[in-house]
């Protein structure tokens, strides 16, 4: 079992922005370089790489730029936002099994780049599974998730007020985080309810930001971590999932479309762990869209099916007094949207005790990747 055999010992990130001049490769190298420095290691010590298959900078180029040593493990994970925790988990497994000794995992993204927005590319004809949705104007990720959201509202009584709970909680956390894109921009419930539609029933503030930036982590063995400068943040448990009969984003064609990938991922994750959802005092939950939060709260077992929306009431997601302060750096909706990789770094900060919205005494943090796509999750422990 992977449990606590490896630890995250370094984190690094670039500034977040729109239209940054640097290439994705350059941003990746800057974040990786910062993470290696944070760990107190030399680039030559890095011999493992795990990245998103959507990454623009290839492993070879990263290694040639950052000046890595001989790399003996490299892997890629697909499905965009579902991959973040997966890259960390693969790196941890590679370290734990001796395939490498020091691994980095990262995500660099230029959201403004057309290549990162496949729905915006006018291609003449569509084959594969998108031909069953895009011709009818279900074009963007927001349209795809809005379809599931409407059904979720219908089946379980979720409302826009619940989704506002999510957006407002994350914005409050961003207002406390100087690195967050929305640091200086408060959001009121009235602003949320009056916002323009993007795809009904989802409005502007149900959507994540569009961000250029990069983030990286360094992973090594628990034994080696003990000698490094930062307090180790252990990879306590890791899981991935492609649930039965799942379809990417347009998961409309199976028996129970609202039973998302988080359910199968959670079953494996908790089976690997010494803790249960009751023991988890803080979470970083993938939030490309606000309705993914109630769905994930249900999937990861913080409440029963259908109760995720009501769970968000009474400030449950808000630091410091909520039952489960969530996305304490602002998340994808208010800090930065870098395919959820900023959630991994915020999980590490919570375990180091250095978050701008630090949950006192937190010893374990859940981090999840995209709901609605083949996904992954981590339990981090200090």
């Amino acid at each position: 079992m992977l449990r606590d055999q490896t630890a995250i010992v370094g984190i690094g990130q670039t500034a977040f922005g729109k239209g940054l001049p640097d290439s994705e490769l350059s941003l990746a190298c800057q974040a990786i370089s910062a993470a290696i420095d944070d760990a107190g290691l030399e680039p030559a010590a890095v011999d493992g790489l795990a990245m998103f298959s959507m990454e623009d900078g290839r492993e070879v180029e990263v290694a040639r730029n950052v000046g890595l040593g001989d790399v003996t493990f490299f892997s890629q994970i697909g499905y965009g936002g579902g991959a973040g925790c997966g890259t960390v988990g693969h790196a941890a497994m590679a370290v734990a099994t001796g395939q490498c000794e020091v691994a980095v995992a990262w995500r660099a993204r230029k959201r403004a780049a057309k290549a990162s927005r496949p729905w915006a590319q006018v291609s003449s004809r569509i084959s594969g599974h998108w031909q069953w949705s895009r011709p009818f104007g279900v074009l963007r990720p927001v349209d795809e998730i809005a379809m599931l959201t409407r059904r979720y509202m219908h089946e379980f009584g979720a409302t826009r007020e619940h989704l506002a709970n999510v957006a407002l909680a994350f914005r409050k956390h961003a207002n406390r985080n100087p690195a967050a894109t929305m640091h200086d921009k408060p959001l009121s419930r009235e602003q949320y309810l009056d916002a323009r539609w993007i795809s009904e029933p989802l409005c502007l503030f149900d959507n994540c930001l569009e961000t250029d930036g990069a983030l990286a982590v360094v992973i090594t063995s628990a034994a080696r971590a003990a000698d490094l400068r930062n307090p180790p943040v252990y990879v306590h448990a890791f899981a991935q999932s492609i649930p039965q009969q799942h379809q990417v984003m347009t998961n409309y064609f199976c028996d129970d479309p609202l039973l998302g990938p988080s359910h199968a991922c959670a079953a494996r994750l908790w089976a690997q762990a010494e803790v249960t959802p009751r023991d988890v005092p803080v979470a970083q939950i993938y939030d490309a869209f606000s309705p993914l939060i109630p769905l994930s709260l249900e999937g990861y077992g913080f409440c029963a099916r259908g109760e995720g929306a009501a769970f968000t009431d009474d400030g449950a997601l808000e630091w410091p007094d909520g039952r489960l302060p969530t996305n304490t750096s602002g998340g994808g909706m208010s800090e930065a949207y870098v395919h959820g990789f900023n959630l991994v770094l915020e999980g590490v900060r919570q375990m180091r005790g250095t978050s701008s919205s630090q949950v006192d005494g937190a010893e374990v943090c859940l981090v999840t990747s995209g709901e609605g796509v083949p996904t992954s999750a981590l339990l981090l422990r200090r």
Partner: protein
Amino acid sequence: MTSTGFLLPDLEDPESAPFWEGCARGELLVQVCTSCGARRMPPRPMCPRCRSVDHRWEATSGRATIWSFVVPHPPLLPAYQELAPYNAIVVALDDDSAIRFVGNLVASPDGAINEIDPASIEIGDPVQVVFQQVEDVTLPRWVRA
């Protein structure tokens, strides 16, 4: 042929071509496993129930109920943005509620996808398939039953 700017299926995709050919004939087809009889849509090469690769296509009644719907607003691709806000729906077939299709609710067989007042659409509304030609493709759309 002049492009309308809509995203349309590749009619030469062998996996799905029979479906689109059915639409052109005015039939809403589903893929059926010849070996075990399981229906499956969207189509795929192997039956997940019995692993047979043999299949046939069967016509359905074309009656369905609305399972969910969205109303997209800009920013969208230009051809769609011109029509926004429009509706897009997912329907479940009355013949087999596990078979669902994405489509649009229109007021008449040749109606546009932005003619129905979105506030009038409800999950559970009964609908009937109709067919509309866009370039060389025939798309299934839906009218109230």
